[in-house]
């Protein structure tokens, strides 16, 4: 029997006040895979992500993360999942390293150890020297780097990126995406990027999944390194995705 994928969504439906946000969604993600889910606003991509996080129970179907239900077995997934959000969500009263260490604090890692880990992660996301600064003393890009460090510091098996790069200007976004995805790949993490930017999805994902409302998979592709180096093939993929998103 084949092993269950790390993330499994099978016939998942979720309604809000009777309106389906996601309907009969089936999606599997294997260990170490980087999947970009792209769709327009209201396509159900964030709801799918929330279902994986276990924010709410689904109305139909099943969600499994590492073989466990993320909603009913919430506690067992401590440290398995980590999320980097669209906004940095840093706590203003905590210094940069303290923000990075918050997950470790929840996992009861002793203070000297969590401080050392947090400082090490800040250095890895190119934030050495800013460890003791408060969030308001950092730029938008720097704050987002701190939030990446916070997501990775707990050494999760799965990193979820919820429109993580979309609030930054194009140059900063590209730079951060490059640095962060390099880290995620080198660490062998499984990752899901939720985005509305087709270019971003094609650049990051080993697999690109296109959703249309309400959470229907309408297209899947797996851009290779060769595709990424060929502007014509990339343009063709972009056009295909744009077409299915717009239909």
């Amino acid at each position, binding site marked *: 029997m084949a092993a269950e994928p790390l993330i499994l969504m099978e016939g998942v439906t979720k309604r809000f006040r009777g309106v389906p946000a996601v309907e009969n969604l089936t999606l599997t993600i294997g260990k170490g895979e980087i999947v970009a889910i792209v769709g327009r606003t209201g396509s159900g991509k964030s709801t799918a992500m929330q279902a994986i996080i276990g924010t709410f129970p689904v109305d139909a179907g099943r969600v499994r993360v590492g073989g466990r239900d993320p909603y009913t077995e*919430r506690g067992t997934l401590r440290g398995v999942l980590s999320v980097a959000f669209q906004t940095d969500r840093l706590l203003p*009263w905590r210094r940069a390293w303290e923000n990075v260490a918050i997950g470790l604090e929840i996992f009861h890692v002793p203070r000297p150890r969590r401080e050392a880990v947090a400082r090490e992660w800040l250095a890895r996301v190119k934030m050495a020297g800013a460890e003791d600064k408060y969030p308001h003393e950092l730029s938008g890009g720097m704050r987002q780097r701190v939030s990446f460090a916070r997501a990775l510091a707990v050494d999760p098996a799965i990193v979820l990126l919820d429109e993580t790069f979309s609030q930054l200007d194009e140059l900063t976004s590209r730079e951060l995406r490059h640095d962060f995805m390099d880290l995620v790949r080198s660490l062998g993490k499984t990752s899901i990027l939720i985005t509305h930017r087709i270019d971003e999805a094609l650049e990051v994902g080993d697999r690109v999944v296109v959703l249309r409302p309400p959470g229907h998979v309408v297209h899947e592709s797996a851009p290779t390194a060769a595709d990424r180096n060929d502007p014509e093939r990339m343009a063709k993929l972009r056009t295909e995705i744009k077409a299915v998103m717009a239909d």
Partner: protein
Amino acid sequence: MAEPAGRGPTLIVTAVIFAALGVTSLFTPDYIIPSPRQMGAAIVELLTGQSRDLAITAARLAAGVVAALVLGSALGGLMGVARPVARYGKSLLFILSGVPALSWMLLAVLWFRDTETRIFFILFIVVMPFYALNVYEGIQALPRDWTEMLEGFRPTRREVFRLLIVPHVVPYIILTTKSVSGYAIRMIVFAELIGAAVGVGARLAQAQGMFRIDRVFAWTILLVILNFALQAAIDFVERRMLAWRPAVEIR
């Protein structure tokens, strides 16, 4: 012209008030407004002979405000995390806040034989709702983004409370303390005036009975100084505890 910074404006306003009192005292009898010299002498007299009353008032103030802060914040915290407690708690607090302070004072005199219990009760019951309601409102204003971020790490309720809710409501508690300190001083003096034999309020009543207007002014000045000292202490705590807050400048 450049505006004076820091405590400059307070010193200027204080100097103007004293100058106005000094000038007015030249044209009025001593039993209406005594001269600054008489007021100064009365202050020295009180500080050397009746400083214990000032200390007692300050201690009562500290006990009442600290108890209101601790229990009011706890109630506000409970209301913030438990909806049924919020519904009933808010109703209770609105009723408590609607009762005139004078009614509480008269009730306290009737209900409690012990003076300290009376004073404590009055101060606690008038100040506590401010803490409870402000802490509750603070929790309501907690950004959902932060709770979602923390939820990602699967914290226990206790961890959410410790890592998110408590630090978030600290500015609300400090702001409430700043707002109620002057009010609390006025309340405690009233309470002592009605229900105590010692303390500044009781001494003020005594001075009035003896037509010692210089002492009435002297006690009043000492109470204003007590309020300044209290505000300075709160400012100090605020600077230490809220060092993370950026200075906001509106042009």
